[in-house]
């Protein structure tokens, strides 16, 4: 392990990605049994488990102590999380959950590719593995969206969902604590926020040109403040863990 590179700011930077993946995975798996049709609730939850797997790989790298991950993740105070509000917010409408899945996964491969030449060899292999899965996540989201856009009622729902979700995606791309240090020591090749235009092009090629008002970045999104839905989500995550916090799983 290259300890000289894994400094506290770099760890904080990687933690933001790990937390995003963890909470996105949790949000998707919440649809097991309640998605609009059986095949989809299985598929969506399965994709969520892939995201949890990515989070686990990143937490393992950051903590350098695999046995301590559960304790670390489940006992952290809310202000110690570095997730963005997009993945913290509860979307109970299926169309919003689907649009979030599309938006997040169309941004995720761009994020992983930033590590393809990392000075941390572990990150290169984690990135390669994640990118393989992400190809299918995008195909899943695309296939659903493409078909639903052909039905007027579904299209209206998806377009309305974009108005809710797109402003939250800007927070995903907002500056990440520790990013400058991570770039200067070669852990990551560039700023994630520089890739926002690529994501926006993907978005508007799929859904058409959207109201520019949706792309005005909020000032308060800095990954240190939690969305008001976070406590509910964290409660769900810890529900089983808290039955017996000392249990060995």
């Amino acid at each position, binding site marked *: 392990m290259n300890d000289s590179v894994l400094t506290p700011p770099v760890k904080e930077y990687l933690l933001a990605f790990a937390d995003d993946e963890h909470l996105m995975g949790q949000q998707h798996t919440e649809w097991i049994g309640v998605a609009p049709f059986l095949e989809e609730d299985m598929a969506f939850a*399965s994709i969520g488990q892939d995201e949890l797997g990515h989070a686990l790989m990143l937490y393992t790298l950051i903590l350098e102590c695999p046995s301590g991950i559960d304790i670390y993740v489940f006992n952290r105070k809310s202000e110690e999380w570095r997730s963005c509000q997009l993945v913290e917010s509860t979307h109970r409408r299926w169309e919003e959950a689907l649009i979030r899945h599309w938006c997040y996964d169309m941004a995720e491969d761009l994020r992983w590719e930033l590590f393809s030449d990392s000075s941390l060899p572990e990150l290169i292999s984690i990135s390669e593995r994640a990118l393989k899965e992400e190809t299918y996540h995008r195909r899943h989201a695309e296939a659903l969206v493409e078909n639903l856009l052909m039905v007027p009622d579904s299209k209206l729902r998806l377009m309305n969902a974009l108005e809710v979700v797109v402003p939250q995606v800007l927070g995903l791309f907002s500056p990440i604590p520790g990013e400058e240090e991570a770039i200067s020591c070669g852990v990551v090749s560039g700023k994630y926020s520089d890739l926002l235009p690529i994501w926006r092009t993907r978005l508007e090629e799929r859904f058409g040109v959207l109201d520019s008002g949706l792309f005005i970045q909020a000032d308060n999104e800095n990954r240190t403040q939690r969305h008001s839905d976070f406590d509910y989500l964290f409660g769900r995550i810890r529900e089983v863990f808290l039955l017996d916090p000392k249990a060995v799983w």
Partner: protein
Amino acid sequence: MRVYEVFLKPDGKEEFRHAGSIEAATDELALVLARENYARRAEGTHMWLVNRENICVSEEGFIDSNLDKPHRHNDGERVARWRKLQRNKKNNE
């Protein structure tokens, strides 16, 4: 909506085996849904989806008459019995 039959083939010389079915609006949706529903735990290395409409199905009774043809069945039991008899005969000689 279409119904597809899902076949998976494990690695190596194993054959494709029926894994179940899936309902989807298009081939692409069927593929991405079948991937997560049937192959998420590495159940196979190859997958076939067959639109159920493209399966030739024999009519009721088409093969029923083959169920009652004992003369076609050979489990080897009679031959084994005969050979055992011959063996015993030889040993007793």
